[in-house]
């Protein structure tokens, strides 16, 4: 016969402690939690550029989000990694189309806005 599941005294106490702590850790959210909406608002007007690089035997797919008027405002996120370059390219293409505001890619970054000085 299969023995009943048995929780020893210490484990039971820890379980009750965890149950108690839930009340203090799971608190109701406040207005401050909505700050991310304002903080990340600029991402709405960003050009998305795919970036593939080979690292540690895998093709890593990154997406770079650049604000189209102020290109110094950017973030780069790793999306996935593949063993095959063509697969990574396909991934990057579709992920870019998913992430970009305009799927046709008309939102572009002007190089001159970087004001890069070669001297």
């Amino acid at each position, binding site marked *: 016969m299969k023995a009943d599941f048995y929780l020893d005294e210490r484990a039971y106490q820890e379980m*009750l*402690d965890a*149950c*108690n702590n839930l*009340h203090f850790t799971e608190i109701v959210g406040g207005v401050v939690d909505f700050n991310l909406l304002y903080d990340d608002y600029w991402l709405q007007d960003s050009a998305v550029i795919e970036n593939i690089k080979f690292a540690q035997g895998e093709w890593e797919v990154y997406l770079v989000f650049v604000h189209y008027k102020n290109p110094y405002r950017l973030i780069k996120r790793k999306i996935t990694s593949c063993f095959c370059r063509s697969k990574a390219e396909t991934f990057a293409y579709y992920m870019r189309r998913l992430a970009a505001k305009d799927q046709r890619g008309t939102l572009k970054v002007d190089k001159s806005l970087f004001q890069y000085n070669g001297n």
Partner: protein
Amino acid sequence: MVKTKQKIIKAAAELYNTYGVAPVRLQQIADLAGLSIGNLAYHFKNKEAITLAVFQNLASEVKDILKLFRQTPNLLDLDRQLSEWFSFQQQYAFYFSDHASWPDQELHHLRTQSFSRLVCQIQKRFDFHCKRGVIQSATARCNYQVVAETIGMTITLWSSYRRLQDKPVNDEKEFKKTVWNQFLPYFTPRGLTEYNESIQPLFTPVR
């Protein structure tokens, strides 16, 4: 439809509660269940088997009551669990008071475990309400482990004690008052307010 086995278990529990486990005979169980002795013997080979089934049933009921721990973050949560303990005591007082009739070592272990879990739950309730600021924090002089043990004893042995005194055992308010009274000295002013608002009205008669 109630199965015959359940009928026998229910009848046995009722008799055990009235007379204790040892003095009850199979004939009495059969009579109360409305069966013949032969039919009783078909379902359970002897009294030990019936007792084992009764205690197994009770152990699972106790588990269900223990599961009610901390479903809401206020004092009413304990009050709800106390109601369950009270109705359990009313039906099966022998579960905690009858020490001689344990049919099985495993079940005996289950009972001691359920008592220690009850005490553990009370202690954790103290911890929780301390954090909420409803109960004073523990000091060297006030050790909540000992208080929890005392409250556990009250919860499990209240009806046996009342029977010893020839007092009525079916007064739920009296039972709850006895238990809550043991919490009272440890409440903070905020705790007292909460107690007066949520628990005290339960004891006053509705006009």
